[in-house]
């Protein structure tokens, strides 16, 4: 049963047979981003080959390019533990940069000095930083390799449609093939088409803001410090990356109102550089743009349901938060940890892979948590995205209080690390 026959299987070949396992032991995942691939790996490993797992994503046609052009993300301690339990952390660890300390400043652009109002330096356990910066492409490639090794079938094709019934779900791919499975999981990102096809509504709105993302080289080392300048137009985050080819690097997430971002993104290189420098500051010396600056429209939202008959949503397909708190992936992977746990526990009791109780338990556990996080990051963004005096007072007072109360700060650090509440087994670093 545990034979890794999924490796190297050409797409379309023998998918129907799925290693001879019945539909109740077959899972199809639409979307091979961080959420989809991590779920596939968790299920394959947790079931020791007892589940047939297939991931569809046209982006899997070639490895993610990597390098300075890759986006980077802050990976919280809970997620890092999960990657360790899944055996992928070692593949990215030497290119992951620990965030040793985090400084938040509140200032207008013209302020010569930006007073720091909150300073987190913290470890969740001795020697365990609360987050690491990792390049998304590195993670995607490590996950895809681990998936293949664990017997997951990766197919570089989109899911076009599906129909779910009481006994199975039948999934149609871009090449017109039909695959029968017990469960379809949509991990196809924020504009999830599968969510629409499942007729699950979406509550959300646009921020009218764009997140500009780029990789920056700088003269002096960042010392593992993450900086978040709360500027009137929105937060400007500088996140430490690992040194590559002797160059000190950071990743920035630069939030601007949509019209301003459109203007900035079409500026000639030297003008953009100047705008960037005004915000980045000169603490780290001379800066250079190592990648094109790319804009991502920002919005917030949540799916009305996370599950339906033989169907579940994970990651951005289920919820979208403002990147202000660097939590998108972390929330998404917590979905994955909970869903994988519920599915594996149900299967170990001989229940269907789409066991109704298991899916509902997943929804109960995750939807509430997501709403809480969504409201928190939304509030943070509103609080900081204005030049209005009461707002400034509230945030100065509020953060001043947090700064003075070690217990509250410690809670914030553990919360940011994803280690508060009912922590799923994978996020405690345990195998399923």
């Amino acid at each position: 049963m545990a034979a890794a026959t999924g490796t190297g299987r050409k797409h379309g070949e023998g998918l129907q047979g799925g290693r001879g396992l019945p539909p109740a032991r077959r899972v199809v995942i639409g979307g091979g981003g961080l959420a989809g691939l991590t779920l596939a790996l968790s299920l394959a490993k947790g079931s020791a080959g007892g589940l047939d797992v297939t991931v569809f994503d046209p982006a899997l046609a070639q490895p993610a390019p990597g390098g300075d052009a890759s986006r980077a993300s802050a990976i919280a301690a809970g997620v890092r533990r999960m990657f360790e339990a899944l055996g992928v952390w070692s593949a990215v660890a030497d290119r992951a940069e620990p965030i040793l300390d985090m400084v938040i400043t509140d200032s207008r652009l013209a302020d010569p000095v930006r007073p720091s109002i909150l300073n987190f330096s913290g470890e969740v356990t001795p020697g365990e930083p609360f987050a690491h910066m990792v390049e998304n492409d590195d993670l995607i490639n490590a996950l895809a390799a681990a998936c293949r090794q664990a017997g997951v079938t990766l197919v570089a094709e989109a899911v076009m449609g599906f129909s779910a019934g009481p006994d199975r779900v039948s999934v149609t791919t871009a090449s017109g093939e039909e695959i029968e499975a017990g469960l379809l999981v949509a991990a196809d990102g924020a504009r999830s088409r599968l969510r629409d096809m499942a007729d699950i509504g979406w509550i959300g709105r646009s921020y009218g803001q764009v997140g500009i993302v780029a990789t920056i080289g700088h003269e002096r080392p960042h010392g593992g410090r993450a900086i978040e300048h709360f500027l009137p137009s929105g937060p400007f985050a500088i996140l430490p990356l690992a040194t590559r080819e002797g160059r000190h690097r950071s990743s920035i997430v630069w939030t601007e109102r949509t019209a301003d971002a459109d203007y900035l993104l079409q500026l000639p290189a030297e003008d953009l550089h100047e705008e960037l420098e005004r915000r980045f500051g000169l603490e780290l010396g001379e800066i250079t743009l190592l990648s094109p600056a790319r804009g991502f429209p920002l919005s917030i939202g949540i799916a009305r349901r996370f599950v339906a008959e033989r169907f579940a949503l994970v990651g951005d397909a289920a919820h979208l938060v403002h990147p202000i708190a660097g939590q998108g992936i972390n929330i998404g992977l917590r979905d994955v940890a909970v869903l994988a746990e519920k599915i594996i526990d149900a299967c170990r009791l001989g229940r269907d892979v789409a066991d109704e109780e298991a899916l509902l338990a997943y929804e109960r556990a995750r939807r509430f948590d997501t709403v809480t996080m969504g409201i928190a990051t939304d509030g943070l963004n509103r609080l900081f995205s204005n030049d209005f005096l009461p707002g400034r007072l509230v945030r100065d007072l509020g953060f001043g209080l947090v700064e003075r109360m070690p217990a509250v700060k410690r809670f914030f650090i553990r919360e940011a690390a994803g280690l508060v509440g009912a922590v799923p087994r994978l996020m405690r670093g345990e195998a399923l």
Partner: protein
Amino acid sequence: MAGTTSEPRHSAGQRRTVDEREVARFAALADTWWDPRGSMRVLHKFNPVRVGYIRDEAARHFGRDPSGLTCLHGLSVVDIGCGGGLLCEPLARLGAEVTGLDPAATNVEVARLHAERGGLAITYRDETVEALAARGERFDIVCAMEVVEHVADVGAFVAACCAVVKPGGLLFMATINRTLKSYALAIVGAEYVLRWLPRGTHSWEKFVTPDELTDAIEDNGLSVLDRTGVVYNPLADSWRPSHDLDVNYMLVAARPEQREA
């Protein structure tokens, strides 16, 4: 999510010729048996505890890893009083070769139909364990869950169950104890107050105590390995294993390996 009626699917040639109206009736009955919020709700809630117990005890006894998805692979199981197949199907998914037995032909038809829909290979027969025993059929695992309290002659029933256990095999039984607490909970509570079960489902005098059941089993040459209570947690609306054997309990017994002559 559940409860949507689908066209009954069945592979040609495998089924006996039944008229279409009969099939529709069985399909409706199957949906009743298998609706987790329907009239079999209590059984659905109870089921994971039974499956977990059988899985863990069998894995220990036969040297399997209970975290494997097919940890009962290759073991033959007979479920006596299988009803709509609520216990047979999970055990089959765990890899066991399952035979479901029920004296009611309707139940057997319903169970067969549901297993076919889910693509599970389970043998269902409308006969009694006594008939099985008379033919000398034997199994690695014999389950008689929630049956003892309904039979006319406990001694004869237990003897027949024991007779179909292979040497080195296991017998699982689950039933209700005969205590004041069980009278209050299982009869007054479940049948009259909560209306979980139709009135008259159980008669208290027929309940068997763990010691009586243990004696009956050990008289047939098996030894009881474990006895575990099952209690209901109203806050979580779920059942869990417990040391308290006063109402619902399960036990497992083993038949010794055959001695070399």
